[in-house]
């Protein structure tokens, strides 16, 4: 049985740019899929297609058992969308925003009012309920935006970079809200550039770049794919770099890489903490002073870099610009 979010061969082009180039997704009910990728990779386009905001050129997508192209209005009843920009009306109060969204989900005025009150309390906005959203902090706006997406408790949620631009404390708070939501059975598709976020929230991760899915699996599976542990040594004196490299290489199971300016040597190893102790002892015997030594396991960042050839948070402005520009031209037609 296909999952709560299911896509097959999605293609969307804007002029010459293939924003989606045959994307397949399958998110089982009640799980979280983290869609990871650099700017301009096609994450937002994927979300826009799945939420009926954009028609795919080809391919098929089913959300909550409904076809996004043929039954868009039924899909809209079953989903909540929380965007990259906190899409709330800043001249309306928090309460007015939520009531309006409730009514536009076709709730009666009375139900919309009651639901707004519930959400304001749940998202810790009750005190600010009757102030215009203009006066809200960034974190409050995000919470209001998320509350607006949850007005009808949709079974399927889409969040496009929900914590971008939030400070660590607010990010933490939003993560807790999202975890609570998922514990309640909601299926969630989340796009993010923060690997830590995907690591913490997502059951499955899909890495996309240039409109294609280039890797998928659980966070652990992806890390295992990238490789095992490594020993990292930073020597105190640059003059010892060559000597130290030779020693460390002796313990490794692969080629050592050396960063001269940071005086750092990295070697893939097998053997864990015990081996680390041996390395330290050997360096000490030879009288090589070290500033830092450690055993590193791959992070999602490493996965990301090894897959896409660049770091996730590096602004890939050029690609982003081209995609946006192309989308604009497309819309102008």
């Amino acid at each position, binding site marked *: 049985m296909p999952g709560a979010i299911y896509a097959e061969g999605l293609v969307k082009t804007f002029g010459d740019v293939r924003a989606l180039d045959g994307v397949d997704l399958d998110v089982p009910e009640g799980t979280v899929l983290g869609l990871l990728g650099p700017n301009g990779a096609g994450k937002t386009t994927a979300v826009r297609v799945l939420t009926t*905001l954009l028609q795919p050129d080809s391919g098929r997508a089913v959300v909550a058992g409904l076809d996004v192209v043929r039954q868009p209005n039924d899909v809209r009843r079953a989903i909540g969308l929380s965007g990259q920009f906190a899409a*709330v009306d800043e001249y309306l109060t928090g309460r007015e925003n939520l009531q309006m969204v409730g009514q536009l989900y076709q709730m009666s005025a009375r139900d919309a009012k009651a639901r707004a009150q519930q959400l304001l309390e749940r998202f810790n906005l009750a005190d600010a309920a009757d102030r215009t959203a203009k006066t809200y902090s960034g974190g409050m706006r995000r919470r209001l935006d998320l509350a607006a997406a949850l007005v009808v408790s949709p079974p399927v949620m889409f969040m496009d970079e929900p914590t971008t631009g939030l400070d660590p404390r607010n990010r933490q708070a939003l993560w807790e809200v999202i975890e609570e939501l998922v514990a309640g059975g909601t299926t969630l598709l989340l796009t993010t550039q923060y690997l830590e976020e995907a690591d913490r929230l997502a059951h499955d991760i899909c890495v996309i770049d240039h409109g294609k899915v280039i890797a998928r699996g659980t966070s652990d599976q992806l890390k295992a794919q990238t490789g095992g542990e490594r020993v990292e040594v930073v020597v105190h004196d640059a003059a010892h770099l060559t000597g130290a490299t030779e020693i460390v290489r002796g313990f490794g199971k692969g080629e050592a890489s050396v960063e001269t300016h940071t005086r750092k040597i990295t070697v893939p190893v097998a053997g864990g903490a015990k081996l680390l102790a041996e390395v330290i002892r050997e360096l000490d015997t030879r009288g090589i002073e070290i500033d830092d030594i450690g055993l590193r396991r791959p992070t999602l960042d490493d996965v990301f870099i090894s897959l896409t050839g660049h770091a996730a948070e590096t602004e890939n402005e050029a690609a982003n610009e081209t995609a946006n520009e192309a*989308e604009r031209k497309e*819309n102008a037609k």
Partner: protein
Amino acid sequence: MTAVTTAIKPRGALSQSVRDSLIVAKRNLIRMARIPEVVIFGLIQPIMFVVLFSYVFGGSISVGGNLSPDVYREFLMAGIFAQTVTFATAGAGAGIAEDMHKGLIDRFRSLPMARGAVLTGRTLADLVQTTLTVIVLAIVAVIVGWRVHEGIPKMLAGFGLLLLLGYAFSWIGALIGLTVRTPEAATSGGLIWLFPLTFISNAFVPSNNMPTVLRHIAEWNPFSATVQACRELFGNLPPNYPVPDAWPMQHPVLASVIWSVLIIAFFRTLSVRKYRSAAA
């Protein structure tokens, strides 16, 4: 939770469309009330025009062979009213461009609401604002000496035509707002073309003194039909005013209604289509 979800009842397409439009209109009216500067600035320009045109040009412009400033002032008012209602274009355009820019259009488009409601709601709110502006302007006009001579029903009919024209123009604004990228561009894009449109017309001077080409444009200008209709309905034409032979000038009330309805039909269709594929 389930109680809330089941409370959603299916509605007929038309009643849902009306209801959704009114919800969006209410939202826009709340906004307008919280940003009164916009409404106030919207009033200053027409009031300035009334005062400047009637005192600076009055006495120099001949209307039907009559140079009296009083005659010109009465003649002028329908033109100023009509120009004022067309400024709704800029308001609608800027509002919708801002909603696009802020991601609100995405939010609306992800909701199970009637397709045209976001735009209809906006244009209805602009209609309310235009009505307020026209009322204030009419009071100023009375103060500087403008009078109607054909009775209240005809006066109301004249204002009805003006508001219909303003409503039609706000749909042009809606399309501009969906097309340009920023609220600033929508404001200037909504205003620039209004100047030739309102000046190559009978709004400020009688069209019969214009060069032939301009005269034909002025006589068939949708805007002129409404101005001419209002002058007739208000009784603001001097007795010996030569009405041009062009059909819209001979049947201005009918022409005004036809033009406005055509503009609404055309621009509403284009705007709603554009809205469906809009992307911020």
